């Protein structure tokens, strides 16, 4: 049934979503095969400072004279890996706790929900800045901080979705039959929560990409000599006032990535909501 579902999904994607999907796959392939596709060593100075776009340097060179395209391809690895890992953490934490709160209800729900409200009462970036000012600057800390902070949003959504399902008579019927909490979470609730959660996973990943880029842009994410797309914007930003658009290239890459995700998710969401009535 799941395969049928995905097939029908793919065949009904809008044109925007197909373009988005194409971009996503291209980016992902470039990241995976970075050493083979990148024309130059990303750390090596190969040309003039801020050289314009030529047939040799397809996207020009950066503030030290390194090839921007090569750095972009290698940087994609960091961006994809960190954002992906943070999203996985936020998702597994958020959905599990969210479902648990909805199914058990009562004091457990109160405790989890109030703690979550408290976390959400501080804007994420501010919270992250405060925490990162104390913790050591490395990739694991970054992933965990991003994941935990973002899990508050996932918690809220998955709890809301699950609460709508928990009040259904078929869940009550399972309870009256004597089924355990795990059966109710995995067999009754999860199959009905999959499509909104699937869409949310895409949106959270897009948000993680933006958030990571923002942190790196502020100099608090990926530390040199490593680079991701956000830190490439930071490195090249001084060129802007001289009319050198080098910083805009990684920024545009981020934009294309997140727009692509949004287009695909949007198409899936409108598709599944129109599926609601019939099967």
């Amino acid at each position, binding site marked *: 049934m799941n395969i049928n579902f995905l097939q029908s999904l793919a065949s009904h994607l809008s044109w*925007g979503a197909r373009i988005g999907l194409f971009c996503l796959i291209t980016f992902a392939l470039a990241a995976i095969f970075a050493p083979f596709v990148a024309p130059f060593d990303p750390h090596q100075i190969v040309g003039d400072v801020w050289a314009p776009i030529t047939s040799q340097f397809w996207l020009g060179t950066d503030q030290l004279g390194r090839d921007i395209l090569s750095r972009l391809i290698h940087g994609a690895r960091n961006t994809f890996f960190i954002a992906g890992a943070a999203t996985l953490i936020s998702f597994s934490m958020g959905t599990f706790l969210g479902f648990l709160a909805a199914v058990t209800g009562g004091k457990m729900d109160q405790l989890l929900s109030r703690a979550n*409200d*408290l976390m959400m*009462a*501080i*804007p*994420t*970036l*501010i*919270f992250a*800045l*405060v*925490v*990162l*000012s*104390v*913790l*050591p600057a490395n990739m694991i800390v970054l992933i965990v901080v991003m994941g935990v902070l973002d899990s508050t949003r996932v918690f809220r959504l998955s709890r809301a979705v699950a609460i709508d399902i928990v009040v259904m008579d078929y869940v009550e019927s399972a309870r009256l039959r004597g089924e355990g909490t795990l059966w109710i979470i995995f067999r009754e609730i999860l199959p009905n929560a999959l499509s909104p959660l699937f869409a949310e996973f895409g949106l959270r990943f*897009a948000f993680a990409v*933006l958030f990571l*880029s*923002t942190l790196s*842009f*502020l*100099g*608090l994410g990926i530390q040199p000599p490593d680079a991701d797309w*956000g830190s490439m*914007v930071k490195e090249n*930003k001084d060129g*802007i*006032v*001289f*009319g050198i*658009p080098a*910083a*805009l290239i990684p*920024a*545009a890459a*981020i*934009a294309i990535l*997140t*727009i692509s*995700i*949004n*287009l695909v998710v*949007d198409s899936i969401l409108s598709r599944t909501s129109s599926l609601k009535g019939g099967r």
Partner: protein
Amino acid sequence: MAANNHSLLNLITKRLALGLLLLLMISVIIFAGTELLPGDVAQSILGQSATPEALHNLRLEMGLDKPAIERYSHWLSNILQGDLGTSLSSGKDISSMISGRLGNTLFLATTAAVIAVPLAIFLGLIAVLYRDGIVDKLISITTISMISLPEFFIGYLLILFFAVNLNWLPSSSIIYSSMGILEKLQAIALPCLTLTLVVLAHMMRMTRAAILNVMSSPYIETAQLKGLSSFKIIFHHALPNAISPIITVVVLNLAYLVVGVVVVEIIFVYPGMGQLLVDHVSIRDIPVVQAVGLIFAAIYILLNMFADVMSIIANPRLRHPK
């Protein structure tokens, strides 16, 4: 009637008390976040290579030898008296470092909000009025792209276009207190535009959804079957019921505004709280980070509280109980 107002007042008082409690909890979290996380503040300031003697001195100086609860209550009571402590890196009084910058940040954020909020609601209404038409689709495609753009992409694009190519506006927004209001507005034109664009898309999309939700209610059908004009239906019958959800939407987006303002200040080298925060995070000046973080959180919570109260007042069921 007196009893009615009383219960409404009760509800509002409760909300306000809850907000204050939240504020207190946030102060605990921010304190704990910087003081109790792994490692030691003194260690992280001086680095791994610090001598034990230097570490010991710094710990004494910062009062790190005292129990955490004592340090927290000391920190909080000082803040309540307006004393935010002193900066580790510069030794300056934090309150005086902040005073001018807080005004600057509020000026920038408020200007952006004043432009973005009415514009978003207006565009949301337009999208509803012509829903499923070309205008609606155009707005929808534009917003879905805008939502995905990082602030710095919009910011640098605007600089490249308006400041470098056209040379209409300054690329960096340096303002000082002796400037007149018009000069100030000109200086913040680009950051303000960036912030507006960042918030606008989200807010408009959600406003549209909130109004459409109301528009599917049976009482809207009643109004249509009364032969009323679309204008009358939207403004007289839909809007009063959409106020509460729209307020919620606006407040949700203030979070984007708070985050956006930090990034925008860096892009445009604007002397505000955001820049202060980012600068001191990178040099790990913890007292400054604590103070600025707390102020940002407090502003955000106060706005939320205000919105909560507004939507209570806007709800006819609560305003006119049985």
